[in-house]
């Protein structure tokens, strides 16, 4: 049995956990002096050694990303925190910033120090006002306590943080689109190269990291790379927050070593809701191909989920039981991608427009089996043809659902419509007698 390892979540049950006093009482901000006694490169090395990989979905080694910053470039360096958590199913960074904003601020200071940035930005999606309040206040408290500003802790190191509210655009979770948003432009992805490490924000060297990645840095600096590496698997080290949602008895946040399985997590969470069975699930948000009950024992690390034909993504485990129509689920996600497509490239913009129409017909029981092959061909014309990964992500639910649930699509055709009753899937199904 894999045990849970609360690190970032450990403070969440404290009274006023978001206050600096609460955080400091637990040793918060003590990693700063540890780091300031090290060279920035040594901090980078420590994070490299820890094996920390990006927690925003792609899993790129964080220390390596930092080491790409060309230090001979005379332009200012920037750290940008991607707090635009919007991938359907993903809900870890929001409670993290709400309950423990100071670990993020401390992580920003350490990471900025490492890459020699004197200005950092926290780009938070706009639709979470209270989270923004908490991070704004944490930054203000950190300034007041001398953790930010000029000559931090007498180290000679200066850092300013700007908390920036987005305004509603999933695409800004894509790092170059986020930079566009942060530069006051439409959030459309940029051509790469140049990569942000070379020419990012204001065409200056820029590191963009996910909230959880940055928040993981203080403990690594404080406790050492080996401590971090003692959790997780060989290539996917450390702790991560797993978010269980949907048809599970105790949905919520479970901070555990990477490599834990869904079976283990479901056990902890009391299983799939009573009287029902697991039908399908996403390992890391809607852009990661669906998995089924066959995959309960897949280690939830980058390699394990990859080998199972999907991606670890953001560890957003959306659990759907047998009451859920997979075609309805996929259509709704596809509508999401259509709504969020930035419009820049043809395959994503037009492809999602068409996918929605094709799936709507199938959900309504119109069409033939040939339409499934056409749908897969449409996905083939989008996947890998789009400008960024949004288009790729849009095809994941479609193609993976046809792979695992072809018969259910066909059942719609033979049934002349959707054979499922959506009322049976609701949180209150079987519990209430609604007026």
């Amino acid at each position: 049995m894999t045990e849970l390892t609360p690190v970032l979540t450990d403070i969440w049950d404290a009274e006023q956990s978001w206050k600096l006093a609460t955080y400091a009482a637990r040793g918060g901000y003590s990693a700063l002096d540890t780091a300031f006694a090290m060279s920035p490169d040594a901090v980078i090395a420590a994070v490299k050694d820890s094996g920390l990989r990006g927690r925003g979905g792609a899993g790129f080694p964080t220390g390596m990303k930092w080491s790409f910053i060309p230090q001979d470039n005379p332009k200012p360096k920037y750290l940008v925190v991607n707090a635009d958590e919007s991938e359907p199913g993903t809900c870890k960074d929001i409670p993290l910033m709400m309950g423990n904003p100071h670990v993020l601020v401390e992580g920003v200071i350490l990471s900025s120090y490492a890459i020699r940035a004197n200005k950092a930005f926290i780009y938070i999606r706009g639709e979470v006002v209270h989270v923004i309040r908490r991070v704004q206040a944490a930054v203000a408290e950190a300034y007041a306590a001398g953790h930010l500003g000029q000559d931090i802790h007498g180290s000679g190191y200066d850092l300013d943080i700007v908390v920036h509210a987005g305004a509603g655009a999933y695409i800004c979770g894509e790092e170059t689109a986020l930079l566009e948003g942060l530069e006051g432009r439409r959030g459309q992805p940029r051509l790469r190269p140049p990569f942000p490490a070379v020419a990012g924000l204001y065409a200056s060297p820029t590191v963009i990291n996910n909230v959880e990645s940055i928040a993981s840095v203080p403990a690594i600096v404080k406790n050492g790379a080996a401590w971090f590496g003692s959790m997780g698997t060989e290539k996917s080290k450390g702790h991560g927050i797993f978010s269980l949602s949907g048809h599970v008895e105790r949905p919520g946040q479970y901070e555990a070593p990477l490599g834990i399985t869904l079976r283990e997590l479901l056990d902890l969470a009391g299983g799939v809701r009573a009287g029902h069975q697991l039908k399908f699930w996403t390992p890391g948000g809607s852009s990661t191909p669906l998995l089924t009950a066959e995959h309960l024992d897949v280690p939830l690390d980058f390699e394990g989920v990859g080998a199972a034909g999907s991606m670890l993504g953001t560890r957003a485990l959306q659990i759907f039981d047998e009451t859920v129509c997979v075609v309805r689920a996929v259509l709704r996600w596809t509508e999401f991608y259509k709504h969020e497509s930035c419009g820049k490239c043809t395959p994503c913009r037009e492809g999602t427009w068409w996918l929605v129409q094709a799936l709507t017909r199938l959900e309504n029981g119109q069409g033939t089996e040939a339409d499934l092959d056409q749908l897969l061909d449409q996905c083939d014309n989008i996947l890998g043809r789009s400008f960024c990964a949004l288009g790729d992500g849009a095809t994941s639910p479609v193609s993976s659902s046809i792979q695992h649930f072809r018969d259910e699509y066909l059942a719609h055709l033979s049934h002349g419509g959707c054979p499922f009753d959506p009322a049976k899937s609701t949180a209150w199904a079987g519990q209430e007698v609604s007026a």
Partner: protein
Amino acid sequence: MSEKTVEKSDLVTVTIDGVQVSVPKDTLVIRAAEQVGVQIPRFCDHPLLAPVGACRQCLVDVPDAGNGRGFPKPQASCTLPVAEGMVVSTQVTSPVADKAQQGVMELLLINHPLDCPVCDKGGECPLQNQAMSNGRGESRFSDDRNRGVKRTFPKPINLSPTVLLDRERCIVCQRCTRFADEIAGDPFIALVERGAQQQIGIAEDAPFLSYFSGNVIQICPVGALTSEQYRFRSRPFDLVSTPGIAEHDACGSAIRVDHRRGAVMRRQAGDDPDVNEEWISDKDRFAFAYAQGDDRLTYPLVRDEDGSLRAASWPEAFVVAARGLAAARAVGGVGVLTGGRLTAEDAYAYAKFARVALGTNDIDFRARPHSAEEAAFLASSVALTGPDNGGVTYADLESAATVVLVGLEPEDEAAAIFLRLRKSVRAGGTEVLSIAPFTTRGLTKLSARLVPTAPGDEAAALRTLAGELDASSVLLVGERLAVVPGALSAAAEVAASTGARLAWVPRRAGDRGAVEAGCLPTLLPGGRPVADAGARVDVSAAWGVDHLPEAEGRDGDAIVTALVAGELGGLVIAGVDPDDTADPVATRAALDAAGFLVAFDLRRTEVTDRADVVFPVAPTTDKAGTFVNWEGRVRSWEAALHNPASLPELRALSGIAEELARLGEGSPLGFRTVGEVRAEMAQLGPWDGERRPDRERSEPGLSGTEARPSEARDDALSAEGARRLSTWKQLLDNGSMQDGDKYLKATARTPVALVTRADYDRFGPTVTLTGDRGSMTLPAEICDDLVDGVVWVPADSVGDGVLADLASPGAGVTITGAEGVHG
């Protein structure tokens, strides 16, 4: 030199569809493929715009990126630079690339209305063409099985008075918005909305008013952007296209004249990489109706016994003109004012006509304020310079470290220069400095550094600036400097002392050619000084005449003065608007005083109304011709339309000369066709002798009047509320060659007087300016960095223009608040 050159010569060898090709480093795959004859379909790609990779039509397979590894997914060839050893498979050899392209094409078409039969672009549409070459025959989206629902929008909306947008046809390739932002610097169109609703848009009440807006219509790869002027007027396959050169400025921009049944339907930008690249101003594109109006002269007119003008045959008109001119010669002589619109061939004909048929050097093309200092400058620093002998070129503007503008506002006065400078500034290569009274919008777009200078103080400013200049600098001086005493001399002096290169930028298309052709009182064709006996011998030998008039002639102002004084008996005048001249009242008086007046013009004007004989002029579409642009670059064209009523002026002049010769005056010109003139000009060639000696450069008064405004200035400036008048013509204004296109006119900038904040606070939102020629009332606008004591108004946007209604440029005017007057 070299680092750059060496680098450029670095070649990278790639294999495309099995064919090896070596291309310069950084070449994009899509263009490398063109080198082996493979056309990869594309929409967003444009060689003059930054790569964007948006449409994804140009996907290719790259089995080896040059490092032994391939790309797992098809790559956009418009954003992928070549790498040594790279292997590329396009749609020609790769089923993966072919399917990717077909897939993108299918997706592009699902929301396209497919209304090609009623679309202006049909027949010349990259989407239509490439759908045929690289798409499927049928769409699965709208077949019977899928019955897809297309996105619809209300039909065209106006982005501006000239440009319409049909959003259903748009494939959001962003060529237009990128052009507006990158090339023109007028980002007044932008992507708006998101996803499938994404479209091109403008802000509320803020239309796409750009001097270059028409280019977006031309580069739109679908029929989304259409021209209000051209819409539904023709089909591409019904048009005959003839290359031409734009006649509206001295840039020498290549255009394409599209015509049908003898009428011009539209004009497009031509592709001349050395000059305008692929862009033209809206004036060059849309202003052509002036030559097709009802007031166009199509036959000669002669003054009848009853005093009215009546139609005449060409031979009769030749005879009448010759008799009158002969008589005028006898009573003091005949002056020739040619204006600045002539082709080089026609200018040569006037130059020869004056010398050979009229026996005079009283000829001047400068039908605008000018000076003897300028004539000297033209002779010493301008004539005979060109791209072949070290003259400043467009390319030099791009490579120069610094370009100094003096008396020149490129966005208004030389659009192609503006665009080239902007290109260079954006590439980080060039710093633009402007000696001017304020930072114009155009200068802002060039990120230019202003050297704040009141009109009249340019010479001093130039000398102050000299320390910053060296051989990597270019000085561009505008024709407006002619009336600033000492300014042109200072420019030449500063260029000589610092090694900076110097070029003169006139406003009119024929100006530079007229210099070369000898339409100056001091210069014979080929830059030959009149004062140089050897030069005269050269020319008289070539022309087969005994001798040429020896004394330098009168300049334009002096011709006017002499006519008024009765010292000249007649005048030959071609396309001159009195209101453009230094003193419109004097010019009109001269026309009235002329004993005999022969006028050449395209349309009926106040000048033709005063003339004794009128000859119709062929517009540039109706004759072959040549413009020499500001660089000294020669650009020729052949006639687009063949109109029997249109004769080049050289033919009429030759007819008159023949009649004069019959009367015993002078000799025939010896040519009747453009081809014969070209041959004669080529045979004569440029002067290889001594240029006009420097010492004469700044000596005034040898042959004409000194620049005058300085005199008026000092008197007027002592008065209360006195300001120095800064003025120039905006690109779009009341110029007669913009007549006839209401859409274009509607895009002109609203005329305002630019005043300092203090003046605005003092005089209010409407001001009256009063000069020695009258008053002008117009809205005032604050100009934050306008030099104190200066006011700016557009030269020809209000009434009859500044010269007629207000005062001379640089002169003093008084400013008062116009209470109760609403401009």
